[in-house]
């Protein structure tokens, strides 16, 4: 075997396999609760523990969510689908086989669009989307000669999304995951919460000479528990493979584990049996028709997808690209934003800054999602209107929003109870302006010497003196008048 030429000519070829748990009430083939974090083996029944004599019955909502995801990813959805058995032995797999889909998945040939630099987008192919059941969880108490199995997760509906080997860098893999997660959350099919295990990812990567289609051996990397780790593990393994190839050594086709503490990938125990999954059609489940009416209903039920929203925010609402992207990044934020706009009579930009500022801060502080923040969109719109009318300063508006979230008061009540009606009376404000000028002779001198910034310090002093209630525009105007500008 001749050694491939060294580093600069090599490019990585990366594909990702993502599993997401579908947000159903019950499991895929039985009526047990689909819930994270219950006591071990609390949500089990004869079906999901693989008792003899029981049979699977497909959850219609899991099928619908799977199809919605396939449609949201632009996949071709077939007229019918079927399930297959994937046979292997493992203690977290009660039946000795996983019910999955082999040759006729829910969706084929979709794509995820990645926003590139300067507005260019890059299409990353989605090879297939299929439904399957999750396995249970195993625990390995350190120092003991046993492992423990919890079957609460066994039978939870999973959607497996396999990308085409279209990704060319770890950073691109990261962006693919962000975009995929966004789409799946928009389609409301999954929480996609990696911490709770509702999104899991395996990566595979190989190197090839740029311009060539001949790949070197493919390495599969498992145990990737965050998007950041996907990127780091890929970068690490690409470096490892590059070094090997540069030294004239071969890359082994193998499965490796990402070891977070050591920041490296290491081969999975090689004692692992070579797998022969013996796929065959699940005889307990006939074929399922996917009627065109169902597909149309699901397609119609999909919300506007992130890319379309981004375009609309920039094009029609005139938001800066960055603001628009921040809003569209999450469907809950985007939906909240649009409900604020729907209240009417408010400027898109101002509302956007409140949503991305005060509302997100409130959500982060309370560790809830935007829908969990106790600020009704109508109230936020009202606050924005007061600011726009000059009746409330920006600074005061933040306090009002915090008060609304805390007390559940209406915007008007909160403004009143905080005593934050803006001071926009010239006479009243003139007193504070004069006091500020008298207290800061240095700033006055600097301004007169041409230092424009000094004016801001003076405005700040007025705001401080009025505890934020001054109308900053008017304060500035009065200061300029007094300074004889």
């Amino acid at each position: 075997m001749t050694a491939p030429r060294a580093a600069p000519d090599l490019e990585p070829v990366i594909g990702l396999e993502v599993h997401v748990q579908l947000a159903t009430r019950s499991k895929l083939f039985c009526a047990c609760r689909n819930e994270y974090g219950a006591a071990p083996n609390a949500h089990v029944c004869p079906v999901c523990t693989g008792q003899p004599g029981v049979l699977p019955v497909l959850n219609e909502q899991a099928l619908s969510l799977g199809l919605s995801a396939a449609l949201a990813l632009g996949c071709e959805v077939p007229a019918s689908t079927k399930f297959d058995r994937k046979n292997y032995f493992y203690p977290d797999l009660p039946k000795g086989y996983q019910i999955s889909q082999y040759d006729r998945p829910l969706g084929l040939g979709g794509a995820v669009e990645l926003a590139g630099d300067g507005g260019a987008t890059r299409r990353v192919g989605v090879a297939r989307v299929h439904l399957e059941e999750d396995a249970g969880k195993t625990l390995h108490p350190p120092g003991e000669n046993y492992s423990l199995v919890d079957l609460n997760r066994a039978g939870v509906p999973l959607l497996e999304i396999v990308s085409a080997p279209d990704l060319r860098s770890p950073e691109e893999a990261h962006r693919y995951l962000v975009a995929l997660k966004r789409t799946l959350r928009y389609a409301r099919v999954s929480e996609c919460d990696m911490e709770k295990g509702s999104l899991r990812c395996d990566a595979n990567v190989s190197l090839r000479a740029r311009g060539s289609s001949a790949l070197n051996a493919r390495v599969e990397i498992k145990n990737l528990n965050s998007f950041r780790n996907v990127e780091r593990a890929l970068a690490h393994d690409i470096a490892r493979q590059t070094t090997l190839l540069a030294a004239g050594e071969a890359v082994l086709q193998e499965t490796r584990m990402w070891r977070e503490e050591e920041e490296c990938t290491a081969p999975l125990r090689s004692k692992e049996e070579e797998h022969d999954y013996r796929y065959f059609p699940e005889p307990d489940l006939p074929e399922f028709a996917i009627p065109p009416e169902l597909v149309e209903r699901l397609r119609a039920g999909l919300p506007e997808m992130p890319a379309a929203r981004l375009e609309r925010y920039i094009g029609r609402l005139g938001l800066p690209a960055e603001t628009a992207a921040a809003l569209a990044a999450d469907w809950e934020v985007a939906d909240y934003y649009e409900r604020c706009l729907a209240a009417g009579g408010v400027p898109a930009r101002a509302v956007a800054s409140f949503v991305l500022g005060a509302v997100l801060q409130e959500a982060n502080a309370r560790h809830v999602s935007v829908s969990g923040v106790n600020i009704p969109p109508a109230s936020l719109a009202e606050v924005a209107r007061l600011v726009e009318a000059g009746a409330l300063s920006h600074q005061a508006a933040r306090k009002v929003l915090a008060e609304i979230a805390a007390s559940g008061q209406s915007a008007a009540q909160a403004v009143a109870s905080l005593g934050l009606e803006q001071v926009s009376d010239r006479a009243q404000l003139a007193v504070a302006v004069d006091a500020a000028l008298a207290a800061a002779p240095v700033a006055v001198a600097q301004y007169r010497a041409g230092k424009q910034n000094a004016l801001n310090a003076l405005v700040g002093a007025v705001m401080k003196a009025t505890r934020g209630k001054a109308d900053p525009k008017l304060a500035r105007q009065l200061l300029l008048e007094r300074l004889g500008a």
Partner: protein
Amino acid sequence: MDRTTVDWVARLARLEIDERTSARLAAQLSAILEYFRSLEQLATAGIAPAAHPGDLRGSTRPDEEAAASAAAQLLANVPRTRDGFIQVPRIIE
């Protein structure tokens, strides 16, 4: 089917088989497979495989949780449990 194949299939199927049995099974399975070769006489190109006998259509169930749980009864059948978990021999990591 030779001994090596029998042993490979036995490993896939997680069946412990001693040497004597392996030899006997190799002979029996070879005879059975030889007999099954008669199927080769049938031309089946272009014939769709029939995984089921009839034209059944799958039906689904609504996404509802069942009220009752047989969890306790199921765990009672488990040979070894610990703190509500199913205990199994150590899975080598």
